[in-house]
């Protein structure tokens, strides 16, 4: 338990993969008690594969990915293909403030765990369903993963270079959907706090990506324009790109917004000719001539280390930062000073690294208090402690593969 702002809130989740689990992970970091219902029968695949890392695991408790997405939660095994397991799940829901699920639309109702049923057991329940396309509409039963949400939501089409294919986006796409689900649950929780009323939320992952692309949607709506990929280009600023540095595959991102900044940059580059060059004299001309401009800047940056350029330019008040990979994020002095990476002692994995909660709350800090649950780690605590099922009964249920 943490001293987080959501202490006292209980959430039961029926989710797997990334988009569902990370939604409740965020709330668990903020102090909510999250009980994850899962089963050996149909195991969460993030316990076995690290999709974007191209890595597989041999046992269910070895996944650093699962750990990073399920921190602070309790885990209980219920094989929902067994009616007795469904009855236990109902009891759990009845003791929860929020239920979240991300099964294919129709599955939860078929199991007897739909909102209509659970709301009769707990009238003021908040229940969020997260699916690819939503619970209604012609595509409602379509299945999808992060790359699908990104492509349907328009982000694949818009990311990359115009002369290359669209981007096959992964990881962070699911986490956009998860973050959206997390704030949606909190909106419903605040409504509940004021009125005592629960409700049902139908969230579509593909829409969580599309809505963040609204500028593009509105360009089509207002001007019938279909934008294409444009690399790092901005519609106004130039320079606005990544420039090569001395070592192989090292890049510095630079964004200049005003003429004053441009003049400062020329001084840092020690290039008075450039400062007087009419082609780059103002925002308009710099944008029109950005290819020549990018080339000139690249010739300067490739003589320097990326961090050197960052410091030189930042000291002159210009936005510049390196393009970092995982190894260099770990080595970065600012990230170290802010303790953005934390190591967790996991009983099976050993030392596992995770990213800290992305907010610092002065009075009710978010915190990592427990590694992700081992499969069935909290069976007794939840089934006996919370629901009062006697230990002998739990053993029997385990033998019958109900608690499984």
């Amino acid at each position: 338990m943490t001293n987080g702002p959501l202490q006292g809130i209980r959430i039961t989740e029926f989710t797997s993969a990334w988009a569902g689990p990370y939604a409740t992970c965020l709330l668990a970091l903020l102090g909510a008690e999250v009980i994850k219902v899962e089963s050996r029968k149909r195991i969460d695949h993030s316990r076995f594969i690290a999709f974007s890392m191209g890595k597989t695991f041999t046992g269910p408790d070895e996944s650093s990915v699962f750990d990073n997405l399920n921190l602070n939660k309790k885990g209980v095994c219920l094989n929902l293909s067994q009616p007795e397991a469904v009855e236990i799940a109902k009891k759990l829901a009845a003791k929860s403030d929020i239920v979240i699920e991300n099964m294919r639309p129709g599955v939860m109702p078929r199991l007897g765990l739909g909102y209509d049923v659970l709301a009769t057991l707990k009238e003021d329940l908040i229940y969020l369903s997260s699916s690819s396309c939503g619970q209604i509409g012609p595509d409602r039963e379509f299945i999808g993963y992060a790359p699908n949400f990104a492509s349907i939501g328009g982000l694949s089409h818009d990311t990359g270079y115009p002369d290359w294919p669209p981007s096959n986006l992964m990881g962070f796409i699911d986490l956009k959907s998860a973050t959206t689900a997390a704030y949606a649950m909190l909106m419903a929780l605040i409504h509940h706090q004021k009125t005592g009323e629960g409700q049902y939320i139908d969230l579509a992952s593909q829409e969580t990506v599309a809505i963040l692309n609204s500028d593009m949607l509105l360009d089509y709506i207002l001007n019938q324009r279909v934008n294409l990929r444009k690399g790092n280009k901005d519609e106004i600023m130039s320079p606005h790109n990544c420039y090569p540095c001395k070592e192989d595959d090292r890049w510095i991102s630079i964004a200049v917004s005003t003429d004053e900044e441009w003049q400062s940059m020329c001084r840092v580059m020690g290039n008075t000719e450039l400062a007087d060059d009419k082609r780059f004299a103002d925002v308009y001309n710099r944008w029109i001539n950005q290819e020549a401009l990018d080339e000139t800047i690249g010739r300067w940056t490739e003589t320097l280390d990326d961090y050197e350029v960052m410091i030189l330019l930042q000291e002159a008040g210009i936005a510049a930062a390196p393009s970092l990979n995982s190894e260099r994020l770990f080595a970065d002095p600012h990230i170290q000073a802010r303790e953005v990476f934390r190591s967790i002692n996991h009983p099976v994995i050993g030392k596992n690294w995770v990213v800290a909660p992305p907010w610092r709350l002065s009075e009710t800090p978010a915190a990592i208090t427990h590694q992700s649950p081992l499969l069935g780690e909290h069976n007794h605590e939840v089934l006996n402690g919370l629901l009062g099922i006697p230990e002998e009964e739990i053993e029997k249920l385990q033998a019958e593969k109900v608690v499984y």
Partner: protein
Amino acid sequence: MEQTALDGVKVLEFCSRIGGAYCTKLMADMGAEVIKIEPPARGDDARRRGPFQGDTPHPEKSGHFLFLNSNKLGVTLDPRSPAGARLFKSLVEDIDILVVDTPPGMMEKFGLGYDSLKKLNPGLIMTAITAFGMTGPYKDYRAAHLNISHVSGQGYMLPIPSPDMSRPPVMPGGSKGGYDIGITALVAVLAADYWKGVSGKGQFLDISRQEALMAMQRIEATGFRNAGRSVDRSAETHRRRIGGMMACKDGYITVIVPQEHQWNSLLELMGNPEWSQEPDCQDPNKRLDQADEINQRIADFIKDYTRREIVKLGQSFSIPFSPVNTAQDIVESEQFNAVGFFKSITHPVMGEVKFPSAPYRFSKTPWSIRRTAPLLGEHNEIIFCDRLGVSREELIRLRQSDII
């Protein structure tokens, strides 16, 4: 009128970037009263960003501003002068949540730091969204969204895949960026508001834009320590994967088969071709050694279909195929229109506009539009005169001195 989830929550926004503006827009859309402060005369930077209706730059015709500020009240105020700071303080006295995105130390310079403001309003939740957070060696560094995308580890991995590593990595495309920061901040803001409802207490929230994006990239960001590798964008990194972007008659589709039953369904769809029966192809790990050849075969199968045809066919076999959508595809999508993703709004200058609403449906407190984005200074009289008691004459003087 339908009830709203955040009815009674009062928010003040003093932001010039997307993250803060989007965070408060989401609250406004769900019923919070949000007062947006813009610089006098010039207005918010977003008013100078496209898409503009009819491609005509105009402060009241920006689709970008329209999207980011729906349901907000708008005032103009420059808090740098003592008179401006006094009015700012009067506004703060009566609110629950203040969101600012000024650099660290700037609010203190105006006499409007958290320590001063909490004396006026002990229940205040003040949220500061900054580039690198309130502490640490880079806290005073500047950063456009381009820089944050790259220094958070996101840009380095894009586009996926990159056929030519001498070309710079890119930021995620589409919209102008920063929306992810808004939704991340919102989770903590709402949790703090919930806590205020429990305890009556306010607090200060430090949100780093860099950390918000790192949290969303948490699996890949920790890859170096947890999996011994830093994922990059090279074709080699992404080679051992079945699926990806595949061209068909009218664009691309995304193919992904993370689960073995989906792989088997894909083979069934393709008529169980002979090559797929080879032992090396049956073994999920050995299969990856020939990912290039297999992907070529899948691409050959797909190329003569339209996106809609092959996606429907694939999904009927429970294979997660999806179209790579452009903005036009989304605006015209049967699914997006069936769920009511787009709503019609009427703006005093732009007229009727088809408008992206939200990626979720709340059963009791649905998304609703009560007012479109404010015209510049639209609510100055209502807020300053009617609410704070500034006389009409005083308002004129404040206008003439560029304070309002």
